């Protein structure tokens, strides 16, 4: 008897292997070479009730637990958030071009960060730093305005997308204006916009974690609902599903994760497009497959991209947005060309 689509163990195993590889690279490669086995010992030693001598010096141990590990963890969460929200938007809007910035998150966060930087609020430390907070508020605010403007009952979701485009243009114009009036901070703002997985200890991962967890939990819970939405609003309604409500919940949850990721890491482009589409082409179009695998592969991809960002021009660091586009775009073109499947 035929079975329905399901998440294959092979696909999950591949994704986990990719994460393990990326994490191992992220923890061991850098200006100070540290052996993988020592890193594993050090991490195991960090577990409660376990005493183990990793053989690392205090400095090396600190590099692993206070510099590289938080950075890897942040990369995992940012990558997972951005690709999951891209996948969720694509499902909710039935639009392959939807990405996490569709409803103005990037423009809103950009405006928030620009204002915070020009006002000189960016010097606070870690969790209470005004820049991520302003970016987060700006990003979510933009989504909210887009929703108010574009969510008209009985209209197609394209109306909402168009509202997002309008809101994004408006906020970008505002941001440009603010920036022109404060040209001394252009460089700083530009650096923020290009994105980075930078950490000061565990502050950023701690800041992102709650939003990340809520976003992933809610969006994944709605994976079957998004499969129903794929047949269009009218038919979804005939199957007992309220398409407007499903879209609202999924978009809000995805936006929460994306805005939080943007707040701590800037505007890292392209991840929300390439990861979900690659997963779709390789493993199947059902949201029961695409959403969970986007979380896993997005996490692995971002850690790998960050590794490249900080090692290619060592000791200088490339903006990670450059890396994700530079590796991601050609790879994605290759995937698109070689795939025989039609998933959109």
């Amino acid at each position: 008897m035929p079975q329905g689509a399901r998440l294959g163990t092979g696909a999950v195993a591949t994704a986990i292997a990719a994460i393990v590889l990326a994490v191992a690279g992220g923890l061991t490669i850098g200006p100070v070479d540290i052996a993988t086995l020592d890193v594993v010992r050090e991490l195991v030693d960090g577990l409660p009730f376990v005493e183990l001598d990793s053989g690392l010096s205090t400095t090396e141990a600190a590099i692993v637990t206070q510099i590289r590990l938080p950075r890897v963890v942040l990369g995992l969460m940012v990558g997972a958030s951005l690709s999951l929200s891209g996948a969720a938007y694509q499902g909710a809007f039935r639009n392959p071009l939807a990405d996490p910035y569709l409803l103005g998150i990037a423009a809103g966060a950009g405006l928030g960060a620009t204002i915070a930087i020009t006002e000189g609020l960016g010097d606070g430390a870690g969790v209470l730093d005004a820049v991520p907070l302003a970016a987060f508020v700006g990003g979510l605010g933009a989504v909210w305005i887009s929703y108010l403007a574009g969510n008209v009952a009985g209209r197609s979701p394209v109306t909402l997308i168009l509202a997002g485009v309008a809101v994004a243009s408006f906020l970008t114009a505002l941001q440009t204006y603010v920036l022109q009036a404060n040209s001394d901070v252009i460089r700083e703002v530009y650096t923020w916009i290009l994105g980075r997985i930078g950490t000061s200890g565990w502050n950023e991962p701690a800041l992102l974690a709650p939003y990340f967890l809520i976003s992933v939990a809610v969006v994944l819970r709605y994976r079957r609902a998004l499969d129903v939405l794929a047949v269009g609003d009218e038919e979804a309604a005939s199957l007992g599903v309220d398409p407007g409500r499903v879209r609202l919940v999924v978009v809000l949850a995805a936006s929460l994760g994306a805005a939080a990721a943007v707040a701590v890491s800037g505007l890292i482009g392209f991840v929300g497009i390439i990861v979900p589409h690659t997963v779709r082409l390789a493993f199947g179009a059902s949201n029961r497959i695409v959403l969970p695998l986007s979380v896993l592969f997005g996490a692995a991809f971002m850690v790998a991209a960050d590794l490249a960002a900080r090692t290619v021009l060592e000791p200088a660091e490339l903006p990670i947005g450059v890396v994700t586009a530079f590796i991601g775009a050609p790879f994605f073109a290759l995937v698109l060309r070689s795939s025989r499947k039609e998933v959109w």
Partner: protein
Amino acid sequence: MSAAVSVEGLAVTLGDTVVLREVDLDVAAGEWVNVIGPNGAGKTTLLRALLGAVDFDGRIGINGRSDGDAMSRARAVAYVPQSPVVPPGVPVIDYVLLGRTPHRGLFQAHSGHDLDVAAEVLDRLDLGRFARREVNTLSGGERQRVVMARALAQESSIVLLDEPTTALDLGHQQDMLDLVDALRSERGLTVLATLHDLTLAARYGDRIAVLSDGVIVADGGPSDILTESLISAHFGADVRIIDDVDGPIIVPAVRRPNRESP
């Protein structure tokens, strides 16, 4: 027989347009009623109101109830749209399993029973061999059967068909309507269909309701309803009606320019 669908004083306004003004229509359990009417008469809107997809005034009773939530209505009423949205990359079996949504809820995985129902429906519609094929790779006729299979997987007693034959050639039109008729008697389905083709509407089903300008203007057996004057008045068409054992045949009369008029 009790009414499976009962519509009283139904009015629907979309934007500033009054689409349905005062629609009264009863469909008995097990009956097949075809709704005909010119373009823009409100046929699809009537079906959408029955699905709860548009806001309306008046009363709609489904199996005697008018207070059901969306899920319970979906267990009672299935819908085959005129142009189904077929998501790319979705295998037939997954598409048909969507019909089980009102039974399993939004967050539950499908059960073994859901799979059994889907497999039975696929077998019945001769689609078993397509189970793993992607719906968007099938031909128009096969695709229409797959959409029908999804509706049957809902196991609802009422099926709404919106122009089920529009995209099909003559042979597939006949196959489709024969299939609906067979399923109706096998499963005791109540069928409410909109049809453009008046001859087909006269040949299949028990009754015809004529919807024009937002009201039901005539309702009854095909031979009583389909008259040259009614069709002229509501469709703006000059037709000739030919009697046939299977029901009246409606053909367009050739309009010749009247040379004697000034």
